[in-house]
């Protein structure tokens, strides 16, 4: 034990001298601990085992500290290769943001030709605003998938209103992209060969003359094309190729092209298998180093304190959530700390089934993050809502995590989240965990079970022996399944308790469940 370790009153001076190069330690000398010169120090070290050992240990300590700093930084999320650059971009960008140009308003709202009569302009603005809201929120809002149709319709309306001619005359502060030589007459979809043209032309300064003469699709129009469910896959991919070319760091208008690309991808849907595959394919180029870095930087900029998440910002969040890269997931978790409402947007984005894996884990991580920053337990129903209407892969992932997860809290959240599934296999997982000897888990599983679709519960009720299992009876009663109604009636609950039974929180549930153990058999 160190308390028994012999001491020497010169140890401090030895360490100061040897480790810190403290050669003229005047005040140590004043206290009688110092050394007149290196020789007396050496002599002391030869004699004093205490100081020798202390010096050895102190050197080891310093080395361990240096190693820790190195390891720590190396182990820091994102601190590998490109990840580090992205991380540091994220730090540096907000610091200089204050002096940078002010962020432009959304593209859509500034393309209105100022020459139009005022009421027309108002209409156009309204249509454009609708398009933004529709395109941004339609496919991934909490509404059902069917809601995406009206939104794509409003995009089409807005496109029709904003004719290329009108846009060419616009004195809008946002210039259209460099003219495409290959697409001079109409705003026809640029072909891959047109992309080559873009590249050549992009490096040359455009003149005002070519700008007014040539009707060129704007970045926004290309974006609309990318997201459009009316365009063919070839047309959509071609439009995306042009946007991608415009996104290259060397392209003169790359920030705007990038923004249009992100907004387009945020608006793209997954109405059928084909559009889902297409959407997934169109996300692929964003995994490329440069674009991934740009996306990370955009996310990082949102981190800056005080910034509100508008449509443009949410588009970045949506695309990042669907991308499923480790670096973007980390950035999203970080963002959600500053902007808790971003979690709703992330959950909504994941409902579009284009992310191959990790969506369930991300939502669970976000839930952990939110919860760990609260002093009191939050309302689990808020988080459970994030999992509603998520693709099956999300639930498969949660079920796979259950056996390996070491944290009870996280397992409980995992189980609660499974309640949002509509898959009989997940119902079976919940049934298994309801028999867990761990109360927190069995209660969470039962509560989650009560949230499954009634059709799955009716199956369970018809297959299983209900008498012995009060948790199952409580769950079925909470779900108000027909078989449970006589039990509820037999309990003769007051209004307040009936409400607790149907809508109580996880904290209420253990007590509610006991009603079905102690009193539940009265109805039989």
């Amino acid at each position: 034990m160190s308390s028994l370790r012999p001491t020497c009153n010169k140890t401090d001076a030895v360490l100061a001298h040897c480790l810190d190069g403290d050669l003229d330690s005047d005040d140590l000398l004043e206290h009688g601990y110092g050394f007149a010169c290196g020789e007396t120090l050496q002599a002391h070290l030869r004699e004093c085992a205490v100081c020798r050992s202390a010096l050895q240990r102190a050197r080891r300590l310093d080395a361990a500290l240096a190693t820790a700093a190195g390891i720590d930084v190396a182990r820091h999320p994102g601190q590998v290769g490109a990840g580090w650059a992205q991380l540091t971009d994220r730090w540096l960008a907000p610091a200089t943001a204050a002096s940078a140009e002010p962020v432009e308003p959304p593209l859509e709202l500034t393309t209105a030709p100022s020459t139009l009569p005022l009421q027309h302009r108002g209409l156009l603005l309204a249509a454009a605003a609708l398009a933004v809201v529709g395109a941004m929120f339609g496919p991934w809002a909490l509404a059902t998938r069917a809601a995406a149709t009206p939104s794509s319709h409003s995009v089409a309306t807005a496109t029709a209103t904003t004719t290329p001619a009108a846009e060419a005359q616009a004195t809008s502060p946002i210039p259209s992209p460099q003219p495409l030589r290959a697409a001079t007459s109409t705003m026809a979809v640029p072909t891959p060969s047109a992309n080559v043209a873009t590249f050549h032309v992009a490096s040359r300064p455009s003149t005002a003359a070519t700008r007014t003469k040539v009707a060129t699709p704007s970045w926004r129009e290309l974006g609309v094309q990318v997201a459009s469910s009316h365009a063919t896959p070839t047309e959509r991919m071609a439009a995306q190729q042009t946007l991608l070319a415009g996104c290259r760091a060397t392209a003169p208008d790359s920030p705007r092209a990038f923004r249009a690309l992100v907004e387009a991808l945020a608006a793209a849907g997954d109405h059928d298998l084909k559009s889902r595959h297409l959407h997934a394919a169109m996300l692929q180029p964003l995994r490329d180093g440069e674009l991934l870095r740009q996306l990370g930087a955009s996310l990082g900029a949102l981190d800056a304190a005080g910034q509100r998440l508008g449509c443009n910002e949410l588009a970045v969040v949506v695309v990042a959530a669907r991308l499923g890269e480790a670096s973007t997931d980390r950035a999203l978790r970080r963002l959600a700390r500053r902007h808790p409402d971003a979690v709703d947007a992330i959950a909504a984005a994941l409902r579009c089934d284009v992310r191959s894996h990790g969506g369930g884990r991300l939502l669970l991580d976000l839930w952990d993050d939110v919860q760990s920053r609260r002093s009191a337990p939050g309302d689990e129903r808020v988080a459970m809502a994030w999992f509603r209407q998520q693709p099956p892969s999300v639930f498969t992932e949660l079920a796979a995590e259950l056996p390996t997860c070491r944290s009870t809290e996280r397992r409980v959240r995992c189980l609660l989240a499974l309640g949002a599934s509509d898959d009989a296999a997940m119902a079976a997982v919940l049934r298994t965990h309801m028999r867990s000897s761990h109360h927190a888990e069995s209660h969470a599983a039962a509560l989650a079970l009560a949230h499954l679709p009634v059709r799955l519960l009716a199956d369970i009720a018809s297959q299983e022996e209900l008498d012995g299992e009060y948790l199952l009876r409580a769950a079925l009663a909470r779900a108000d399944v027909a078989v449970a109604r006589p039990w509820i009636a037999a309990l003769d609950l007051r209004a307040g308790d009936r409400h607790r039974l149907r809508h109580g929180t996880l904290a209420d549930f253990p007590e509610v469940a006991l009603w079905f153990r102690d009193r539940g058999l009265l109805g039989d």
Partner: protein
Amino acid sequence: MDLRVTEPGQPKSSDSERHWLQRCQAGDAAAFQPLLRPHLAALLALAKRHCRDPHWAEDLVQETLVRAFRNLPSFRGESALRTWLFRILVRLASEPERWRRGKPAESLGDLDVPDHFELRAEHDAIARELQDRLDEAMERLTLRQRTALHLRAVEGFDYEAIGGVLACTAVAARMHVLEARRKVMARLKEHLEP
């Protein structure tokens, strides 16, 4: 007998640092990134000494950069840039309410959620044990002691430079280093034995 592990010293400014600094102070915001980038890893290492939550460590670095950018015009080069940056960071670390938003995450020790950095080789187990204890011991130090020992052991700062960061004299800086080392060594006990 070799008495020195490292030569302590003052951090020095390179030519390119002076170049970017001048441009930055002349109002070129684009020069801020190349100017600051070489110091970010060191800032993160120090921030992680003060915040267990890696997100908060990042927040602390970011807030440091925001303050640095804002105050760069008044930076007169009397100390090295790195010393100045550390000074900002340490001051912010002492006033978390000025930059922290939200509540702290539970420390990793209280929460048995597997974290992201599990890619550790088995042979690191012993080193890991030492590092864990080291983290714990460092956490128990005062902010000044913790900073002083980190700057000495990791950055190789001399007492004067440490004093520059902590806004104290070199003598006081030495006392912080010595006291910190003594306390940590006492806590680590046999873990530092060969």
